[in-house]
């Protein structure tokens, strides 16, 4: 077996989640060979990865939200990697933004960080159970600075 390109493309968590969900549907239809010993590995990895991803924000995303989010991120001049990290993690506090955006103190002002958090919270769907008072996130962001 030969690896032609170990880095052909990046995938967002959302794309992997889509792929695995579709694969799961397809495999449900062809019931017969799912349980043969050879397929056990695929079943395990699919199950575990889907379990992990369904607990992340990507499970609630759609192609439209991704497009909207990327368009909204244009004025902030973030690298592709940073935008994807924001997409995958949906940061709610300034501390999280600082982790994901390199040298955020130099590149973004406090208002810009708040604006980023606001956009992330508005555009990317959150966990309905955790969203009791959305106002808390902004309050904490400003007090933590």
């Amino acid at each position, binding site marked *: 077996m030969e690896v032609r390109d170990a880095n052909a493309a990046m995938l967002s968590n959302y794309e992997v989640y889509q792929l695995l969900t579709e694969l799961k549907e397809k495999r449900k239809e062809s019931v017969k060979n799912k349980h043969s010993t050879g397929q056990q590995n*695929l079943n395990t990895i699919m199950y575990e990865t889907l379990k992990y991803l369904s607990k992340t924000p990507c499970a609630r995303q759609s192609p439209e939200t991704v*497009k909207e989010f990327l368009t909204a991120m244009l004025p902030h001049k973030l690298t592709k990697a940073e935008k994807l990290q924001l997409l995958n993690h949906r940061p709610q506090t300034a501390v999280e933004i600082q982790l994901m955006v390199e040298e955020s103190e130099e590149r973004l002002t406090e208002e810009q960080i708040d604006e980023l958090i606001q956009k992330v919270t508005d555009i990317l769907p959150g966990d309905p159970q955790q969203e009791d008072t959305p106002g808390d996130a902004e309050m904490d962001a400003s007090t933590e600075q």
Partner: protein
Amino acid sequence: MSADTGVCCALAVDSRLSAFSRRMFLVVEMVDTVRIPPWNFHRQLNEAVAEELNKKLANKVVYNVGLCICLYDITKLEDSYIFPGDGASHTKVHFRYVVFHPFLDEILVGKIKYCSQEGVYVTLGFFDDILIPPESLQQPAKFDEAEQVWVWEYETDEGTHDLYMDQGEEIRFRVVDELFLDTSPTGPTTDPEPPANSSTAPTAATDDSAQKKEAPYTLMASISEPGLGLLSWWSS
């Protein structure tokens, strides 16, 4: 089998990867010869090939590439050949596979598996071998022998709070290093001593080949930054 990528094509296909790109999952292009046994000849070639590739690669670590998750798509199928003595067909396939391979400095969220003197072990469910060594914990930290947990001695004006890193807690960490081990069989040892001789203790050679179950792919992580560590430490 091709994935419906929709608008995400813009994300997946367009990037000419820079060394600093950070992604948990990657698409890796590979080429391999797939053997399809005769009893599968009635199936669509694409499906039979996809199944064989998943059987071979899913949930396995490829050295220096990462943990393979599932097939992304098949880009090219060359001609299938049948060789003398083997009724099966052999087809050279160009395909792309989804691989888990986080990059340096990537932020991930996992669960604490357990703690030991060596540090905190974290799991993602589908990937288990993540270690945060003691020096990369939030300092100062101490190991509580009785409870077998690491504790962050968080200092405030009112005194020190002990923050325990309990099993099952969700933890945000940064990937700082990765280690690939070649776990392919090393072949017979050239040690001339017959096995019957080692009545006392096993020789070092047999110890190594007994494989203390070395993980083929390990990640080293750190939580020594603001915002990293248990999610409960930083949430409102």
